[in-house]
């Protein structure tokens, strides 16, 4: 902030300024404008990122910081043999592999449905969007009740169609799928809105021309709609993918990572090893690996979108 105030002081008493002075003054202003954000980003984003990388090569244990020493790739080697870590990686992958395609397709289907000119369509848009307006913690608590095997709505409703009863969150084979279903329920409305904006940007005359050529609804979808929203589709798939790799709140609130670690995730392990077991070095190694995964996804995204637009 400092340079900004200095600059205003300089500005007033000088009616005429030489080009050199003006240049210096401008420099003050521009650095002054950028400085607060840059300083904050450095201290609270770049610095911790560098520290995470550094800690990941040490055996830093929070309770005995004086014994910290450089251990090279020791933490990373430990990761490769840690069954809990591998399980968490697998759980996260399962979540990503199901949620990304299913949620994207559900959102697209919803957007196509609510893009029709029908009476009361606004109500349906709002209905599908409603879960987005609540927060993840709130819906996680709510669905823990719904999934209660003995006193839960889910079993009552499934009973009507002759299914169940299920154990949901208390069964190691069902817990992750229960979380997946709820997550899609919560998030699909958000992507639906983005898709909807994209669909409405496709000019009507393209559909009219196709109708004249005798195209059916399916052909229009494949040849006009999908190409028209291709970039949005890629964008949504990637954003959903990155968000899905961060899975934490749902297992933290609903299952505490259980039963039998079936809902432990990468970020859950970063949290647990760091804040419960205080193993900063090891936790940082997981955090860095997590970052690398997100980075790879982002790079793939850029490639994919570029290829598509070229």
């Amino acid at each position: 902030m400092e340079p900004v105030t200095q600059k205003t002081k300089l500005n007033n008493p000088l009616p005429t300024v030489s080009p050199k002075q003006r240049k210096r003054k401008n420099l003050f202003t521009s650095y002054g404008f950028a400085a607060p954000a840059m300083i904050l980003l450095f201290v609270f984003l770049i610095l911790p990122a560098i520290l995470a990388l550094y800690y990941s090569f040490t055996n830093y244990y929070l309770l005995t910081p004086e014994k910290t020493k450089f251990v090279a790739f020791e933490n990373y080697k430990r990761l490769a043999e840690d069954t809990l870590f591998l399980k968490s990686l697998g759980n996260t992958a399962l979540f990503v592999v199901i949620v990304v395609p299913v949620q994207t397709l559900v959102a697209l289907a919803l957007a196509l449905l609510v893009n029709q000119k029908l009476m009361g369509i606004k109500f349906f848009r709002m209905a599908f969007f409603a879960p987005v307006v609540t927060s993840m913690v709130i819906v996680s608590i709510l669905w823990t009740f719904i999934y209660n095997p003995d006193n839960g709505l889910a079993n009552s409703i499934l009973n009507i169609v002759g299914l169940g009863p299920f154990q949901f969150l208390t069964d190691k084979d069902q817990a992750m799928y229960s979380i997946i279903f709820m997550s899609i329920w919560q998030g699909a409305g958000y992507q639906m809105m983005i898709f909807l904006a994209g669909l409405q940007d496709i000019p009507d005359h393209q559909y009219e021309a196709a109708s004249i050529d005798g195209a059916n609804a399916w052909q229009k979808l494949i040849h006009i709609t999908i190409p028209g929203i291709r970039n949005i589709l890629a964008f949504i798939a990637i954003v959903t993918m990155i968000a899905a790799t961060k899975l934490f709140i749902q297992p933290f609130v609903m299952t505490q990572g259980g039963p039998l670690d079936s809902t432990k995730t990468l970020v859950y392990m970063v949290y647990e090893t760091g804040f419960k077991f205080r193993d900063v070095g090891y936790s940082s190694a997981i955090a860095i690996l997590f970052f690398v995964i997100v980075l790879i996804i982002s790079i793939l995204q850029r490639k994919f979108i570029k290829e598509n637009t070229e």
Partner: protein
Amino acid sequence: MKKNRIIAQIGLYVVLILLAILFLFPLVWMVVSSFKTEPEIFADLKSFRAFVPYTFSLDNYTGVFERIPFIRYLLTSTLYVSVIVLLGLFVNSLAAYAFARMQFKGRDLLFSIVVALIIIPFESILLPLYLIIDEFDWLNTYQALIIPFIANAFNIFMFRQFFLNLPKELEESARMDGASTIRIFFQIVIPLSKPVFITVALLTFITHWGDFMWPLIATTDESVRPLQVGMQFFFHQPPVRYGHVMAALTMATIPLLIIFVFFQKYYVQGIASAGMKN
């Protein structure tokens, strides 16, 4: 032909209504149950009555206020998120303006660093950030909840995009009249940029309103505990009473609902434009 179309329309409505039920039933159950007694909630689980508001008791709500400082959680969240939004608008738009309009050494390099920072997931810097905040002695303070989140690389990017598309003429003629850069920014650029300010404000508010992991770690004291963390604690605090939790959840949903109702247009435009730009 016409008959077919009517049948198709009815089919469409059936699908839409079934889907609407799927998306709304948990929320309807939450709100309706919050006004029922505990035995009523459990008795209704097996029937359609679970969604029928036949009693209207506020006992669960008074129960929540007796058991947790709900209003305090709510105010804490509202306060810290609002401060992040306001300071963030200021700091990020200033930086973005420098990147969009000013010439200075290292500008493009600096901006490409900012863009690269967008990729860093918060979860991967959690622990070192905690240690830094601890070093500052900020644990259990509002500073810990606010200051790390003021500057935001993505918001700088959004602002810059918008500023680049503004016509330069107004700013240039103001400069001819001798206005300082700061004055130009506040009196000309900001009024022209209302849409991007509202969009960024909304997106920031909604993001941080949902913050969970960081406040969970950085605030162990009830005096600075935000709503989301308070809800999680209440949920696990025995005795677990469905009615109480439902009342608390219903109340916790209201703030975002209000924001959404008032700013619906901007919100939808905001998420849509965030989608388009990429």
